[in-house]
């Protein structure tokens, strides 16, 4: 009887130890809010793709060691249906019902701003890849008691992206034209992102010596021919199809048919898409990717990343490279958590992110957040040889050191 009791005690102890081991890997709840349906689905899906890949890699590598515990990332992915009300409801659910420690998303400026008003008071970190957040990320907003203290902009400031893009486009196109280009027309969608992005890009082009005209089209335009005809009458040297890539893919063939300009620049159209769609122009065309191209990347790390990214079933689209605005920050956040050693000290994690750097896939130079919680990295610009769909010449342009005259940064 006594032996039986001893045996039971040993068995119970063994069971408890097994239970302890099973509990050693705890869950780190992380939220992702992205448009998996609706009009922003092509950008939204990239966030989900990047999050799945990053979480899988971190978990496969053993998880995140915080203090004496190891955590495996548990993703809570919510489709915002490209609707601000659903975004808010999802953010409330993730923050208050589930208790996530950080949220990745969204793809839209308006939604990210509304979300930050929920994540901020709850001290939940938010990583959003909208350069337009620069309009609200200032000293007061990111202060310890500011409403954006826990928000991070995972895309460079727009004057940086615009500056590197303008420089790259002009340096690739100038040798291809009979005379140096002097007159640019920026063709852009007239919505929040389009307005914000073009306000910086126009100044970046002007800083490069261009005379610039801005032509805006209403969002959801499908027939661009009246506006393109007007642009043709302006006799530009380069037409810059600025934000957004999806509309550009509709407008660009119309421009080619009309013979609007002797050269073009297509923002956010990956060489991979250009090739897949068999686009062809008899004039030089430049392309840029946000931030680096999946169709023609100079970095082996980026090539490996996209092999794995598409290997998980992510679709190849004009905005697939946007996933790189979100991927690295999972690893950086994990690194910061390990350094802080506590899961429930978001202020310490914010401080650690601000003083640390991280060498990720998106940039060969380690990523650093500035005092306004924004990163800096280069932009890749490619040129397609005329009359080809698959001959690309690519260059990586570093951002300028300071905003151009008339641009107040942000």
């Amino acid at each position: 009887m006594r032996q039986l009791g001893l045996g039971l005690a040993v068995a119970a102890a063994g069971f408890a130890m097994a239970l302890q081991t099973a509990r050693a890997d705890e869950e780190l709840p992380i939220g992702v809010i992205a448009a998996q349906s609706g009009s922003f689905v092509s950008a939204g899906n990239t966030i989900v793709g990047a999050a799945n890949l990053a979480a899988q890699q971190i978990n496969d590598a053993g998880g995140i060691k915080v203090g004496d515990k190891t955590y495996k990332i548990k993703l809570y992915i919510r489709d915002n249906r490209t609707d601000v009300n659903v975004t808010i409801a999802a953010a409330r659910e993730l923050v208050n019902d589930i208790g996530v420690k950080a949220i990745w998303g969204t793809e839209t400026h308006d939604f990210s701003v509304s979300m930050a008003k929920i994540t901020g008071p709850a001290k939940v970190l938010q990583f959003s890849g909208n350069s337009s957040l620069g309009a609200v990320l200032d000293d007061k907003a990111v202060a310890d008691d500011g409403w954006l203290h826990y928000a991070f902009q995972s895309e460079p400031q727009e004057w940086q992206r615009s500056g590197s893009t303008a420089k790259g486009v002009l340096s690739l196109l100038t040798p291809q034209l009979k005379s140096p280009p002097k007159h640019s027309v920026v063709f852009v969608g007239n919505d929040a992102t389009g307005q914000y992005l073009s306000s910086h890009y126009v100044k970046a082009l002007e800083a490069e010596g261009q005379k610039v005209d801005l032509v805006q089209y209403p969002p959801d335009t499908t027939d661009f021919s009246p506006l393109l005809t007007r642009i043709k009458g302006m006799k530009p040297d380069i037409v810059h199809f600025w934000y957004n890539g999806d509309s550009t893919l509709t407008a660009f063939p119309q421009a080619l048919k009309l013979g609007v300009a002797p050269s073009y620049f297509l923002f956010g159209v990956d060489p991979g898409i250009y090739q897949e769609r068999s686009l062809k122009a008899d004039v030089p065309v430049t392309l840029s990717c946000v931030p680096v191209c999946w169709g023609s990347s100079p970095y082996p790390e980026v090539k490996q990343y996209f092999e794995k990214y598409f290997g998980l079933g992510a679709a190849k689209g004009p905005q697939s490279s946007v996933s790189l605005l979100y991927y690295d920050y999972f690893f950086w956040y994990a690194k910061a958590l390990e350094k802080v050693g506590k899961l429930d000290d978001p202020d310490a994690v914010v401080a650690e992110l601000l003083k640390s750097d991280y060498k990720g896939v998106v940039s060969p130079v380690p990523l650093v957040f500035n005092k306004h919680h924004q990163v800096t990295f280069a932009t890749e610009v490619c040129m397609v040889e005329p009359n080809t769909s698959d001959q690309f010449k690519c260059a990586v342009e570093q951002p300028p050191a300071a905003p151009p005259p008339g641009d107040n940064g942000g």
Partner: protein
Amino acid sequence: MPVTDNSAGKTGAATGRTRASHRLALLTADNASVPLPASVQAITAILLAVLLIALPWLGLGYRFLSIAITTLYTAIGLYGLGLQFGQAGIMSVGHAALMGVGAYASAILSVQLGLGFWTSLPFAMALSAIVGGVIGLPTLRVGGQHYIIITFCFCALFVIVLTNGGTFTGSATGLDVGSVTPLPGINFDKLSNNYYLVLAALFLALAATYLIGISRYGRTLRAIRENEQLARSVGINVDLHKLGVLMVSGLFAGLAGVLQLYYLRHISPTLFGAFPSLYLALMVMLGGARYLYGPLIGAVIVNFLPEVLNLDPVDSRIAYGICLLLVILLLPGGVGAGIKNVYCALTGGSGTQTQGGGSNGRA
């Protein structure tokens, strides 16, 4: 050998068909003006109020509560649309823009003059009412589809003005505001408190709609809706009443817009464009513009259907389209009419009398 009475069978089948068609007629009739017993009205109101008040305590989660808030402020806007469409027969497909007038007025007052929720609310509502009246001026000369086109144009114009309004309107990026100014002991940053704020506004909208419905003013509006020329011939100032109801509708829209602004705390032009306006028109038709709870029912269907059935936006639009077709074909009075008809069918009350009932018959 059994004897079969075929004629009796035929008669029975015919009677069955008659009963079936009678039941169908009962269920599909528009009986907005058929009065329900006062006790039924009171019990319905109390049950609904208790349910809505208890909602945050049911443990349904923050996501549910967030969508409930969206539903309630949308319903407030719909009550305005319900009044002008259901009572006066003036349909608008630009109602979101009228909500936008209220929202932007409040946001601009906050950004430019530092006015908070409570102080900017009356100005915003008043401005929405005035704009509602101004848009309504053409209805004095044209009506029906012409007014619908005018409201659609206003909606498009409003978005263009906001998008190109520079820092004053925040352009396409929009404007930000802070939290609702707290009342003593009540912090509206707490989601349940925000819910009760919007719910209180909904109760006001419901009460106002009910009172208008049973008032002489409501009867006059219905007279105009049914026969404008006849109403004019008996001395009703049709123009004044039309403008009046559009301004009242504007008041509701302004209130809804300000509540929306302080819930989202960030607004941009896309929230008040053609698409949201069409959704409002859809909601009011689905729910039933002539029924007291019709706009609320419409808002609940459109806001919760994608949640409950996990529909993406494309599927949702298909579902709304099918719902609208079904409503037009089977329930011209909307789902509100259907619910009332079911009640009438179950209790043996008359559900086929479509007009001429008491003015307090809005169920």
